[in-house]
């Protein structure tokens, strides 16, 4: 596990002090309240920050060496920077840049993200030192955007929609859902909703929706706190050699523990088909599969796959 990063209060404060200077440099003056709102702290805090800035500057520290604010405006509750002594906002560190680009790339993947996501990504890329690049996704942007927009409109209007959905067994179904919230996990987009076909709450993948048709029916079930983990039917233990681990690490609730030269993947199985596919995708690295009911499904799938991939 990576160690907890240092969260020095002095660094948090410097971040905000530089932020205030850069903000005023870009946008001119601002009131204490506007700055407090923008930086998520109290007006009192902003006042103390500005007073500290007022005392810093270049060596010598005579009147002309210090950062300066308009004192008359200050008395009116307005912060107006008149001399920044060349102070500036700092560029992103490699860690900051890569963590933001990675998250934004995942957000943009389905192209169903808000339009601001791709422009934010472009802005971040401009400001980082060529550490990371985003390869454009090759996906079907228009369809994904259409699905996303139809769901977003229904959420906004609190109405139900009719969806043509492909389930994890590749069956095409029609269902009426009441969408509540759109969630991204990794690069996959989901909608948390009430599903009339299941008569229960469900989390459905957007990329499995072939069609979304708005309805006039109002929503009749309230949203409930998000929970992406479906109820498991049983627990599985899969022993894999190290190179196969990556296939399981993003499963909800999974634990991976080293044991006698292998890694044991423990996971609650809600959809045996989904776990079977993961096991098969790294088949050569698999050492054992428990329990037997999962093994039987995996073996059946392996046989079917083998039968359609003869030489």
């Amino acid at each position, binding site marked *: *596990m*990576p*160690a907890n990063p240092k969260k020095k*209060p*002095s660094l948090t404060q*410097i*971040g905000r002090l*530089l932020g205030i200077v*850069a903000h005023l440099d870009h*946008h001119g003056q601002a009131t204490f309240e*506007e700055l407090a709102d923008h930086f998520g702290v109290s007006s009192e805090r902003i006042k103390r920050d500005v007073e500290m800035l007022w005392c810093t500057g*270049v*060596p010598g520290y005579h009147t002309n060496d210090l950062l300066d604010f308009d004192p008359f405006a200050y008395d009116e509750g307005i912060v107006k920077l008149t001399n920044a002594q*060349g*102070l500036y*906002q*700092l*560029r*992103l*560190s490699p*860690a*900051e840049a*890569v*963590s933001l680009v*990675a*998250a934004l*790339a995942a*957000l943009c993947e389905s192209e169903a993200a*808000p*339009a*601001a996501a791709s422009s934010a990504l472009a*802005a971040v890329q401009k*400001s980082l*030192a*060529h550490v*990371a*690049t985003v*390869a454009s996704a090759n996906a079907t942007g228009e369809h994904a955007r259409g699905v996303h927009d139809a769901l977003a409109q229904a959420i906004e209007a609190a109405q139900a929609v009719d969806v043509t959905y492909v389930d994890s067994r*590749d069956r095409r179904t029609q269902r009426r859902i009441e969408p509540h919230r759109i*969630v991204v*996990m*990794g690069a*996959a987009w989901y909608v948390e909703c009430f599903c009339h076909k299941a008569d229960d709450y469900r989390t459905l993948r957007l990329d*499995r929706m*072939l069609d979304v048709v708005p309805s006039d029916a109002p929503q009749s079930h309230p949203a409930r706190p998000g929970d992406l983990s479906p109820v498991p039917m049983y627990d599985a233990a899969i022993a894999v050699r190290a*190179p196969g681990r990556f296939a399981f*690490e*993003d499963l909800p609730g999974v634990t991976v523990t080293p044991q006698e030269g292998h890694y044991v993947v423990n996971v609650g199985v809600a959809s045996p088909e989904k776990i079977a596919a993961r096991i*098969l*995708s790294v*088949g050569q690295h*698999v050492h054992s*599969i428990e329990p*037997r009911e999962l093994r039987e499904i995996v*073996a059946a*799938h*392996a046989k*079917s*796959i083998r039968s359609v*991939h003869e030489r």
Partner: protein
Amino acid sequence: MSTSAAAERLLNLLIALSNASHRMTREEIRSTVAGYQKHDPADPPQEAAKKTQAFERMFERDKDDLRQLGVPLRTVTDAVHGDDIGYTIDPSEAALAPVTLTSHERAVISIAARYWNDAELSHAAHTGGDKLGSIAERGSTEAPIAARASLDMGGTLIPLAQAISRRQAVTFRYPSSAGSYVERVVEPWRIVFRGAVAYLVGHDRERAEARTFRLSRIDATAGQSAVSAHGEPGSYSIPDVTTDISAVEKVFPVTARMALRPESGHTLRRRGRFVEHLDGADVFEIAFPDADTAVAEVMGYAGAATLLSPPSLVDVVRAHADAVLEVCRASES
């Protein structure tokens, strides 16, 4: 030492180094920058030595803090007095490019900042988001979506990004085609993202060519030392990989041909391009971000989709299926 005093001193140090027309030595910093205890000629030698030690400790911490804030602090040795170290900051290098985000973009950045579960990535994304946010337009930053990482890459992503900016080679363990881990020595060039999947493009020293590595396949069991520095910083230069397509191309999509049974593979049909009817099945051409993803998807269709090409991947599909059948057989006997 109070938080405010530390912040004020650090700010004065940043302003001093950014404004200095030449490098500043430790002694210059100590005697001119506000917040450091000055050398007093009236002090007895023991007292003076104590104060010097205290200054050295404080200055070391401040240098670390500046670097953690993202300041490219350079060490310059004097051409005449080789042991006389000075420090300098180039504001044009240290400053954030002036990108003014709209309030919508700032909202997206704050969603991105909340994306990570991993403490180190989460902290970096927050401080980076705050820097970008500081110069954004004022206004509401509400956004109706939530995002969460499904996989954490803290052990590999940050060390690789840092190594790239330092131009320092790295070593890590990566599976060979035979399936066992092999130590690789790589000059990292660029991290390339395709959706939530991250790849490293770099020069593999042993194989003497550009290679692509999927970050999630790097042996991360060693935690923070999964990726470790190898050799000195500044030991290579990065070619313009955007023009050197051959290196980056390897992470670009695999185009697979798949035969789909009638009434199956609905999502593949939507994403793919219809090619022909073949023996009662429909053949589609489908692009995947990489070979692993293509194989995983074929496996998910449990026989309803047949991979026709590329042949190398068909071999992989067979080998995985055979291996699993063997495991299942062995368990029953």
